């Protein structure tokens, strides 16, 4: 019973992180029909930026006292802004010039961006090639215990922040004018333009939004897991891939699908690790991808689009 509750909570917690990253993928895919390979690297950047900013603020992993809560918020916001800027630059320089080019070209460019981010981050002048420990921004307290399963403050904050952001995005996309503009662009660029929507600005905004979500996910990841591997380590690539699988499983291009997919993937991964074998944690998620692609490629909440002939 303890194992069940523990697995459930872990799965949902990590699933929420996957969902945040998946939202970024799905937002971009929705308006450009393009998988932004560099997205997971923005997530990595978010985690490392959080570390760098926290360190710059004088916080360190070895300090005994935990800092005032608003500093944590400051780190989060700063990381989001930083990644938002990076996302904007990437879209402008590497993707926009290829808007009219064949799909393959922009995909290749995205791969280039992904590797660029990874390898720049690894330089000694940047974040360095060694793993680092994220300073604790919250006191390590256990809030309550159910059936032997401990619920820590960190986990609560991570989950609450993730949920808050998801609700925020949901509201933005479905209940604001800007969100309507984004959805219009996702249906048809030309028609949206004819309706007076500045398509380029909306696209930039979508990238910025997605990057900010990835940054938040990175920050939350750093808070929860503390040990950050260097930016080119494959652990980040795998995380990003799993988040992408989450977006696909939920239905790529579908906001609620991304959230649903994230939770699903988190649960699958942790249940697999807990009840089958922990060596193959990534294999479960990818097996699910293959199954979904075979059986229902549009995902749980997606609808199949037919190409116009």
């Amino acid at each position, binding site marked *: 019973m303890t194992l069940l509750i523990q697995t459930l909570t872990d799965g949902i917690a990590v699933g929420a992180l996957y969902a945040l990253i998946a939202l970024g993928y799905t937002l971009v895919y929705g308006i450009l029909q*393009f*998988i932004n*390979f560099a997205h997971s690297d923005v997530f990595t950047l978010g985690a490392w930026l959080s570390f760098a900013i926290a360190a710059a603020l004088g916080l360190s992993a070895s300090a005994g006292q935990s800092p005032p809560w608003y500093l944590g918020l400051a780190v989060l916001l700063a990381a989001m802004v930083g990644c938002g800027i990076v996302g904007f630059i990437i879209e402008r*320089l*590497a993707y926009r*010039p*290829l808007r009219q*080019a064949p*799909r*393959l*070209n*922009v*995909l*290749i*460019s995205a*791969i*280039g*961006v*992904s*590797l*660029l981010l*990874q*390898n*720049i981050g690894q*330089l000694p002048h940047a974040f360095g090639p060694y793993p680092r420990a994220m300073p604790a921004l919250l006191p390590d307290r256990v809030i309550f215990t159910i059936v032997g399963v401990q619920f820590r403050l960190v986990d609560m904050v991570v989950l609450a922040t993730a949920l808050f952001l998801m609700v925020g995005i949901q509201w933005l996309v479905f209940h604001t004018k800007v969100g309507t503009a984004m959805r219009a662009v996702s249906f048809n660029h030309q028609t949206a333009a004819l309706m007076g929507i500045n398509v380029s600005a909306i696209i930039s905004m979508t990238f910025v939004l997605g990057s900010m979500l990835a940054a938040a996910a990175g920050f939350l990841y750093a808070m929860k897991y503390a040990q950050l591997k260097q930016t*080119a380590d*494959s652990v980040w*690539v*795998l995380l990003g*891939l799993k988040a*992408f*699988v989450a977006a*696909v499983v939920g239905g790529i291009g579908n906001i609620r699908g991304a959230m649903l997919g994230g939770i699903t993937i988190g649960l699958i991964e942790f249940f697999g690790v807990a009840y089958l074998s922990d*060596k*193959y944690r*990534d*294999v479960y998620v*990818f097996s699910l*991808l*293959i199954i979904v*692609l*075979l059986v229902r*490629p549009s995902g749980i909440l997606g609808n199949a689009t037919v*190409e116009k*002939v």
Partner: protein
Amino acid sequence: MPRALAPLLLGGVIALILHLVVQPAVGGFGSNLILFAGINIILAVSLTVVNGFTGQFSIGHAGFMALGGYTAAALMYYGSFKIYGNANFHGGALSWTGRVGGFSGPWMGSGDLLFVIACLAGGIVAAAAGWIVGLPSLRLRGDYLAIVTLGFGEIARVILQGTDAQLRRSQLDAIRSASPLQLMNKLGGALGFIGIPPYTTVFWVYVWVAIMLIVAIRLKRSSYGRALLSIREDEIAAQAVGINNTRYKVRAFVLSSFFAGVAGALYSLQIGSINAGELGFQRSFEILIMVVLGGLGSVTGAALAAIILTALPEVLRFVDQYRMIVYSLLLIVMMIVRPQGLFGVREVWDLMRRRRRQVTGGDA
């Protein structure tokens, strides 16, 4: 039929010349470069069959290389134990990778047969994986294949690095009594698979290079190759003229995976060790950039780019830190400024022909 074999024999002769004449002339470092350039040619040309001819987007090529490499390594290592009782060299002069002049046996030895089988087995296992991965994902849109192949590459690495420890010389009896299935799991795990008797020489690599080039060029200049190119150009129009897109895509993918597996086999049996950790996404990307640089769909382009990008890191060794950064920037800039790479979808002889005549385009 004999006419069809002629290019292969020519390739064999060239391989012999490279091995017996060129190799001693350029010394150890140079011949290593030649050898690895050859392996990279096989990798790049096989990838261009999928990414270039057929216009699909596979970015997990190194995963097939790893599968092939481990298969061949296991066959060679455990096979040697089972047959000879040790993991020493049992080949001929053409497979001798040691000190020049340190071998005084015949041209071919009994170990060479095992070597050839190991390479073929590596290719076949990789091809089977290609079939399993390709069949569900090639039915769908291009981006999905990219994710699936990326995932596959990582998963292959994870699984191979999760295997049990290798059995050593000291455990000869255990090796002898173990079944193939049991041995399949004892591939060294995170430490990698080591101690494999090396057989790969310039000769063998270039025999396979010849095979790869002949297959690729014959494929391209045939109705089968045209079908692949038509899929790349316009999938809907291809279907309208009776092409079963999925079947062609899967076959191209399986073919490409086979050769990646062979390249992996040659690779692991040259160094004598293999570690899946070095054959992850970064390696796949290095092969991808060779294909893109050479021109998606150009066999000679891919080969040329493979040679350039094998030599370049050696020349620029002092800025190795920035190598991947330079490559990534190169990729992005190329896509914006010259997406067709060096030769586009043409071959080097098409471009030379075009300079003499003024007619645009040729039939490839």
